[in-house]
């Protein structure tokens, strides 16, 4: 397994370099260093001298990829791309354009994101599996029919509707939770409960329907018929045999999502005033802060790779037949 993991890490390096190059190209195609400087210096009384000074201080006065004024290695290293990207591979994210330390900011903002994302993931996964098992158990009955109808209806509603509708009903009409905001420690509960519930409900339709399909596929297999022929109860058949075998495709989607719990949700955090990494990313895009954008994209790419490796490892845990060779 270790050899496999090392091989995956080796594969990850060119992927991360590629992600970096693409991020850099996309960002500086849309925003020139002058645009970035102007954005940070404000809208009024911005002089060309102030722009030049701002760029020089932050290394944005250098060429993007290739420095023709130098010779040798300096042609590649004395560039914006090299200076802004290479240190990131040592997880040194540097400072945002407003001078604040990105790593520290990520460390602080990760927890509010997790406070919402972990309950959504854990409770959601249990709820989706439980409901999918129920409708699979009652397949071809009215419970299955109306369950699927409900899932399709819930899938058809946009996430924004759940957020605004949830805030309207739960916070505005029923006064049960604060509409938005966040606090640390135990006080976080009252702020997290509504976004978490909305997160669970928002994904309920699509996830349940998918998991139902996995279960139905397993239910029709020969080993399930054999189990029933042995006289096992339907509950035992479902939980001991079907669930275990259907876990592989479920894990494919679920484990790969675990690392992304850190990244937060862009819309939910914005509407609920959760100071997480989702809103950090959105703010950085709006303020054209390349330092933060590249860091978040880089972390996203790393987490995606980690998620895939974790998924592969989890396969071996739920299905002993799978080997890494």
């Amino acid at each position: 397994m270790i050899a496999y993991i090392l091989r995956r890490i080796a594969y990850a390096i060119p992927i991360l370099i590629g992600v970096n190059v693409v991020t850099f190209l996309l960002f500086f195609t849309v925003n020139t260093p002058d645009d970035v400087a102007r954005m940070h210096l404000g809208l009024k009384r911005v002089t060309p001298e102030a722009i030049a000074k701002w760029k020089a201080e932050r290394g944005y006065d250098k060429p993007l990829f290739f420095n023709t004024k130098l010779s040798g290695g300096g042609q590649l290293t004395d560039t914006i791309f090299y200076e802004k990207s290479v240190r990131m591979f040592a997880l040194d994210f540097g400072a945002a354009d407003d001078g604040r330390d990105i790593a520290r900011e990520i460390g602080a903002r990760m927890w509010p994101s997790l406070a919402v994302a972990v309950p959504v993931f854990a409770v959601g996964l249990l709820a989706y599996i439980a409901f999918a098992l129920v409708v699979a158990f009652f397949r071809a009955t009215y419970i299955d029919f109306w369950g699927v109808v409900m899932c399709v209806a819930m899938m058809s509603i946009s996430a924004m509707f759940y957020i605004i509708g949830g805030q309207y009903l739960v916070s505005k009409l029923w006064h049960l939770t604060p509409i938005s905001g966040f606090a640390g420690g135990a006080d976080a509960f009252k702020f997290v409960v509504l976004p978490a519930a909305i997160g669970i409900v928002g994904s309920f339709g699509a996830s349940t329907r998918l998991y139902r399909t996995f279960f139905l596929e397993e239910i029709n297999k020969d080993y399930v018929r054999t189990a029933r022929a042995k006289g096992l109860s339907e509950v035992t058949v479902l939980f001991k045999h079907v669930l275990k075998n259907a876990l592989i495709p479920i894990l494919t989607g679920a484990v790969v999502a675990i690392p992304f719990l850190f990244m937060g949700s862009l819309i939910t955090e914005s509407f609920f005033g959760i100071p997480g990494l989702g809103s950090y990313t959105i703010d950085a895009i709006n303020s054209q802060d390349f330092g933060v954008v590249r860091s978040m994209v880089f972390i996203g790419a790393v987490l995606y790779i980690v998620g895939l490796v974790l998924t592969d490892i989890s396969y071996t845990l739920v299905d002993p037949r799978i080997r890494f060779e």
Partner: protein
Amino acid sequence: MLADTRRAALIAVAFAAGCGGAPWNDPYPASDAGANILYSSFSERPKHLDPVQSYSSNEITFTAQIYEPPLQYHYLKRPYELVPLTAAAVPEPWYYDGRGRRLPAGAAQRDIAYTVYEVRIRRGIRYQPHPAFARDAGGHPLYHGLTRAAVADKYKLADFRETGTRELNARDFEHQIKRLAHPRLHSPIFGLMADYIVGLKEYAEALKRASEELTARSGKDAWLDLSRYPLAGVEVVDDHTYRIRIKGQYPQFLYWLAMPFFAPVPPEVDRFFGQPGMAEKNLTLDWYPVGTGPYMLAENDPNRVMVLERNPNYHGETYPAEGEPGDAAKGLLKDAGKPLPFIDKAVFSLEKEGIPYWNKFLQGYYDRSGITSDTFDQAVQLSSRGDAVVTEAMEKQGIRLSTSVAVSTFYMGFNMLDPIVGGGPDERSRERARKLRQAISIAVDYEEYISIFQNGRGIPAQGPIAPGIFGYRGGKEGVNPVVYDWDGRAPARKSIEAAKQLLAEAGYPNGADAKTGAPLVLNFDVTARSVDAKSMLDWTRKQFEKLNVQLVIRDTDYNRFQDKIRKGNAQIFEWGWHADYPDPENFLFLLHGPQGKVKNQGENAGNYENPEYDRLFERMKNMPNSPERQAIIDRMIAILRHDAPWLWGFHPKDYALSHAWLGNLKANKIAYNTVKYQRVDTALREQKRREWNPAVLWPFGLLAALLAAFTAPAVLAYLRRERSAGRA
């Protein structure tokens, strides 16, 4: 079913107990219930809190409560009037000629080579508690000369346990003026001030050289001690007096003395934050402001909340005893002479989205709110007399409406370098372009625009100067005769036929070129905007269609838009301006030739140039307000209306709502240090919050019933299936 309901009730009771009896949806800590706190919000995190760098309205909301420049605006009087803050009096200008001889107060502008402002500051003003002032038993600074290792475990200001204070002195003001030229800081007004403060430009160059030498010698973290470099234009006379020397005459300089750019910054605070290892941990003056004002920044978490708390060392100030007529009747003078501030703490929560913000205001969790187009109909209605009043629902909640005209202008500009709308090099083509601009000025109906898109919240502009500013004229004499006729009571927009006539005279009869017959196509450069803006663009297109002129919308992102303006590639564009200070110069300079965007990267985005206007501007800008100045402004406005380089657009009207428990509220569009005047009736707020936010528990019962309704048949079906003899 009964058991489910009971369980739900138990959960609810437990939840309520956990919330300490406060409304369940209260977003604030239970410990703050009943406290003398102002609750407000911010939508964008402040970038700078250093008074030399901060220039945005979302930043000055905080800095204005903390920093105290020499002057401030009177809270109640209108027109806006400067009064002393840390200064003992508003300084009078001393004029000098080129040979250094003092001139009398009414000296001619051409004779004045320099103006000196002597600022005497009040005694006994002390800074907020801060570790930079902390001293040991021997009187030596406790936290100066720290090594990188010593600050390794410091992540916030509170990690420095000891604090101290000291009296404000004139050197702190001198230090801050020097900081305008600091090579490692970005002051947005440095370029402007370098044109006025004697020696500031040279000082910046000297500091730059010194900084480079220092960096080469001791590294980039080395402390640049400004006290070693004198600035010719600032002189410290004694501990409580300093003088600023200005080139020529610049009466508007006094307005700058009312902004945080000229607030005192103690050198030892700069030195404290300049120590190695501080900046990497965000321990900077840009993050932790230090002032003498009524409040200090107690919590700086721009991701969530910013908290201002009463400064225990505040020198004290009293609520004004005078205002404008009507203030007493509104109860705005009830607190006259009482010590400020009234509020102990101000909590600003980050609120990015409008819907949660509005709903929290209605629930009583914000003390005041603006009104967006989405919430306008819910909040405001027109009375039988045509006045804007709050709706019945708002009135029931005791919510009050206050309106004020902003010192801002939103206009549609023509790029005067464009051959079609600006004209070519010859007089004939310029005349054609002028008539085209005048025709468009008539056709674009800003009354309709304000009615449709601003819910009536605006005044059609007759020129660049906003109401409330010297030089603005209302009524018949203030009407733009190119666009309006006076109907005896109000200005009436000229008919579209008059516009078509002008268009024909411009060489485009019925919207087509008289020579070639080609339709006139104009380009409107706008920034990429939301879907909601589509209707505005459609409306604009229709205004041009009244003249059979085709308008092409060139929609782009803000960066490209700015690039077009900078390079002079735009043809027609929209722009706005909010005044820095209440003087006509701050509006009229937007059309001053030397401020041309393409030529000099100035603020004249349309690149308008008129030699007579420029001459008059030079004369007017340094004059004190007088009938002579008004006459010059009238002439300048007449030139502008004739040339029509802008469609004058509108001056927005701000509508603000506040709850009944918030007192002493008067809209002030220039000053921002207003928290100290406001008052909160906390008992009324608590009572209303509880009244408006009772927890509704029946949804728990409904949820339990739904679960039971779903699970019961499923359980029954399961049991039936398990007990059956065989399976289908």
